[in-house]
């Protein structure tokens, strides 16, 4: 039933996005802070330390936290202006219910909860437990991520819970798991400046992980060579020693092309391979195929660049690999990552100072939120939900019969497809804005319209929440406390800075109350997030991501602890694999003979151009938060289509023209930005905007078979000059999906 209750401009006029520009009390407001609370930025996986300044239970500004070791006071613009999401006029402060023809109207918590619980019960009793799905988020604390997993399995007993980390880290995680048996960056960031050669594959570090830039530059100061793989010349690529403008989806051409040379020239560590790994020979056989011609053809770059990369990487005394969404957002994302990691493994350069690799998590708790059991196939501690031993252990922790724990459910994209097909009738979502962030946005919106009941928990009325029957006002990071696990695998503390405004509640209280009303109160009897952490710690014990030895006090005192930390007093594990022991039953790391295969949709005559999508520095994910912060929006107000002058000339497009970017699934009209810093066969559109400006209108709903990550980084489009749009959406503010 969930069509929009009224037209979008009306909803926007009531709930935003609108822009917040001035701190409470105005810029001239001076005087003393009541307190400055040390916590962390919520706007990416690096989780920079920051202090928020408080007066009268209001966040009025920030102060750098120079003693936090990861970022030492550094912040990107999102971190600097993050405090503007507090005291925001769009902030939801009461539960809302859909009012046909009008939009939303407030209702009491009790009425809202009653409605939610009765709908859950109705749908589950009529269509089965699994007919109610849960979509959760990777920007939640570890405690909340743990709670969501337990809530799904114990309170709702649905198999169908997944989270938006599915759109971010899963390829990297799956690849690491396959090769090493552990899903985590292998090294702390402090190893980066110590490496003599660094390969950055598909990571726009400057914009998506800005703080990492200083680590890279520091490495260069120490004499390191920097190799960057990207279809666009990003700011770090500009200063790289070698920039390889690889064709989207052609990364394996570079990796295997390099490896073939390295094998021929003897730049691999035979002893290491023999003693600590398995599967190298089959891998080498596949690599053999990547002759200079073939590798160049796949990669779409002259072979010379690949050869130079091999010459830099191969013989280096120490090396570091960083990879991110550029190679991961593919229907072969896991294979891409495996191919990249194997460049590390074959040289034996890991598990020591300045040697190793890392995946750059994008979401706020991208690392931690995937370990606590809110993935459709996992239980806490990164445990496989179909592993009988894991089920038994967790059933014990939860004090429930093992058979009551559902099996593997649907991951995010198939879950939405099941909604579209009418198999899943009800949905609870938190910290997820799929109408902007999932691929093939027109399909996603149509799916949401199929729902019989949808309850959304958020602090702003996101584009997705507009489809909800009930919206429950939850909490911002700084209105609750807990832990997250940063890009390095460092577990850190978010402190409560202010209390939720109005009737808004801490997320965990909302979830626990629903659980209680579902009759499972005794299993959700937490007084605070700390209780959840204590339980999580035990639940993770013996798992891969073992938090058992951690306490909040230790995390505070030590500025974070790296997992695994298996028993009290254990110092944590900043660097993995120091003992050359890997987390497979045979103790070895495994090579895989991955081979290049085409992406699901390759350009053709009708749609001849590659579209690749990504982020800009001033926005975070679906933009629900950053599109509401005036200073961040001003920095990058609306998406633009980057294209090379050669392509633009062919299409008769000049800089600033409106262009229509169209795939088989949908289109956007945005302004063209003509730059020599992108491949001529590729256009780029950032994805933080909704509706008529959503890059995901075009992207393809294809997923990697192992990780189930969507293929955001390549689909086929055509681009043409367009008139200035005049539809009502285009007339909205740019923060709401308009265009100017």
């Amino acid at each position: 039933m969930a069509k929009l209750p009224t037209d979008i401009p009306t909803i926007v006029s009531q709930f935003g996005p609108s822009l917040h520009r001035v701190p409470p009390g105005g810029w001239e407001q001076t005087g003393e802070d009541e307190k400055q609370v040390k916590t962390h930025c919520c706007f990416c996986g690096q989780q920079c330390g920051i202090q928020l300044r408080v007066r009268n239970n209001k966040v009025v500004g920030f102060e750098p936290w120079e003693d936090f070791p990861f970022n030492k006071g550094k912040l990107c613009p999102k971190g600097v202006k993050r405090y503007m999401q507090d005291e925001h006029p769009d902030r939801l402060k009461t539960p809302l219910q859909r009012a046909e023809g009008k939009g939303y109207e407030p209702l009491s918590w009790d009425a809202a909860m009653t409605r939610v619980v009765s709908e859950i019960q109705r749908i589950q009793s009529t269509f089965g437990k699994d007919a109610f799905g849960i979509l959760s988020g990777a920007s939640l604390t570890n405690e909340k991520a743990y709670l969501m997993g337990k809530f799904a399995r114990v309170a709702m007993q649905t198999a169908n819970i997944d989270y938006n980390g599915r759109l971010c880290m899963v390829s990297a995680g799956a690849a690491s798991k396959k090769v090493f048996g552990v899903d985590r960056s292998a090294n702390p960031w402090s190893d980066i400046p110590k490496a003599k050669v660094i390969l950055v594959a598909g990571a726009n570090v400057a914009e998506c992980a800005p703080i990492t830039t200083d680590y890279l530059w520091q490495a260069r100061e120490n004499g390191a060579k920097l190799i960057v793989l990207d279809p666009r010349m990003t700011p770090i690529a500009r200063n790289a020693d070698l920039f390889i403008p690889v064709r989207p989806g052609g990364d394996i051409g570079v990796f295997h092309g390099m490896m073939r040379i390295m094998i021929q020239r003897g730049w691999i560590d035979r002893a290491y391979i023999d003693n600590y790994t398995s599967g190298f020979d089959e891998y080498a056989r596949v690599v053999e195929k990547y002759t200079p011609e073939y590798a160049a053809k796949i990669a779409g770059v002259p072979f010379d660049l690949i050869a130079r990369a091999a010459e830099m990487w191969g013989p280096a005394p120490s090396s570091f690999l960083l990879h991110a969404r550029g190679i991961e957002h593919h229907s072969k994302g896991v294979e891409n990552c495996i191919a990249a990691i194997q460049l590390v493994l074959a040289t034996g350069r890991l598990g020591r100072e300045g040697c190793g690799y890392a995946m750059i998590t994008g979401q706020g708790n991208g690392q931690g939120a995937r370990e606590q059991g809110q993935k459709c196939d996992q239980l806490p501690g990164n445990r496989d939900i179909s592993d009988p031993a894991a089920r038994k252990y967790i059933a014990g922790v939860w004090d429930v019969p093992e058979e009551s724990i559902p099996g593997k459910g649907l991951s995010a994209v198939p879950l939405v497809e099941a909604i579209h097909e009418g198999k899943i009738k009800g949905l609870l979502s938190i910290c997820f804005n799929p109408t902007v962030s999932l691929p093939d946005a027109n399909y996603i919106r149509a799916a949401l319209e199929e729902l019989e009941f949808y309850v959304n928990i958020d602090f702003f009325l996101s584009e997705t929440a507009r489809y909800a029957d009930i919206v429950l006002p939850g909490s911002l990071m700084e209105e609750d406390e807990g832990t997250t696990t940063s890009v390095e695998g460092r577990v850190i503390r978010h402190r409560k800075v202010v209390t939720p405004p109005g009737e808004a509640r801490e997320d965990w209280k909302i979830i626990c109350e629903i659980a209680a009303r579902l009759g499972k109160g005794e299993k959700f009897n937490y007084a605070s997030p700390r209780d959840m952490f204590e339980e999580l710690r035990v639940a993770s014990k013996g798992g891969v991501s073992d938090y058992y030895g951690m306490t909040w006090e230790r995390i505070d005192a030590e500025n974070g602890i790296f997992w695994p930390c298996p028993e009290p007093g254990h110092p944590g594990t900043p660097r993995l694999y120091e003992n050359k022991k890997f987390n497979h039953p045979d103790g070895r790391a495994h090579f895989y003979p991955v081979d290049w295969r085409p992406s699901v949709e390759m350009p053709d005559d009708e749609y001849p151009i590659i579209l690749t999508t990504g982020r800009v520095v001033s926005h975070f994910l679906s933009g629900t938060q950053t599109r509401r912060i005036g200073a961040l929006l001003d920095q990058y107000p609306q998406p633009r289509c980057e294209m090379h002058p050669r392509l633009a000339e062919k299409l008769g497009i000049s800089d600033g023209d409106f262009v229509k970017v169209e795939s088989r699934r949908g289109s956007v009209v945005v302004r063209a930005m003509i730059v020599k810093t992108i491949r001529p066969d590729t256009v780029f559109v950032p994805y933080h905007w909704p509706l008529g400006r959503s890059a995901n209108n075009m992207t393809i709903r294809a997923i990697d078979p192992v990780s189930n990550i969507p293929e955001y980084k390549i689909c086929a489009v055509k681009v043409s000059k367009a008139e200035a749009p005049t539809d009502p959406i285009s007339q909205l503010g740019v923060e709401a999906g308009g265009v100017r």
Partner: protein
Amino acid sequence: MAWGLIAAFAVVAAILFGSRGLRDFDPALVSYAGATVFAAFGLGYRYAMWLRRPPTRVYWFRGWEIFFNPKRLPSNIAHLTRIFWNNFFLQRFIERRSRMRWTAHWFLAWGCILAAAVTFPLSFGWVRFETARDSLNVYRAFMFGIPVGSFHLGTPIAELTFNILDISAVMVLIGVFFAMWRRGRDHGAMTVQQFSTDLLPLILLFAISITGLFLTASTHLMNGLHYGFLSQIHAVTVILTLLYLPFGKFFHIFQRPAQLGIDFYKQAGAEGPQAPCIRCGEAYTSRLHVDDLKAVQRALGIHYQMADGSHYQDVCPRCRRKNLALTQDGLWKAMSERGIN
């Protein structure tokens, strides 16, 4: 020095002339008049020194030249009236900096102007009051010895006239209060303020106003208790302030009107040809401005001529920034191309 003396003599002459050869001069106010003469000397001297700086001289003369340009004069006068209202009377430009600052400044400025408008003519003997011959209840006012009006005691106009100094004192006190409040709370202001330039003037104004008010209180409420002593203290504060006038923050009162000149200068510049940047080709200010700046720089010994005959002053500020970055980046690029690291 010469200008200082000229200013001092001008004041003395004005006193002599305005008080009809000291006939209307009130000897009780002689110390005030003396301090004023000294202040005039200081101001004249300081102003002349200021005008000796090449940039000031160029703009001062250029400003008048443009103002009195016959073709522009009528519109200049109209414009002057407008900016006088906005910038002098309302002081809008300060409001845009900060409301608090504006409130403080407006009260301070108008309190002082009002007080000055009364006290200077009085102490110079330009204005005097006397009771009418036919009625003790009627006061007559003389300016330069010429009767300019009369009023009855007890009428509002009389109250206003006799209490105008109290009103101005209260205005100044309000201003001081706001200014102090701001200076005590605004972290930004606190870090850059200095005692002698920012706080001392406030203290002086406070002292003048409060002692002045005490005088009134003494007369009306306490039957003249300590009147003599109080009036001496008041005189000391006023004289100190007068002496401070040319040296401290108060000098801006005399310097500030130059802003009006700049307004005309900018207008004339905007109407004339513009100067394009030699790097990006875009106009960035007026030709007039660039040419004057080059003259100022020459006078100051700033040598922006480049080896190739071009002039660095012809590069717009934005291109200067970009150029600098390209230069620095280029040094590194050249380095790594030569393979030295």
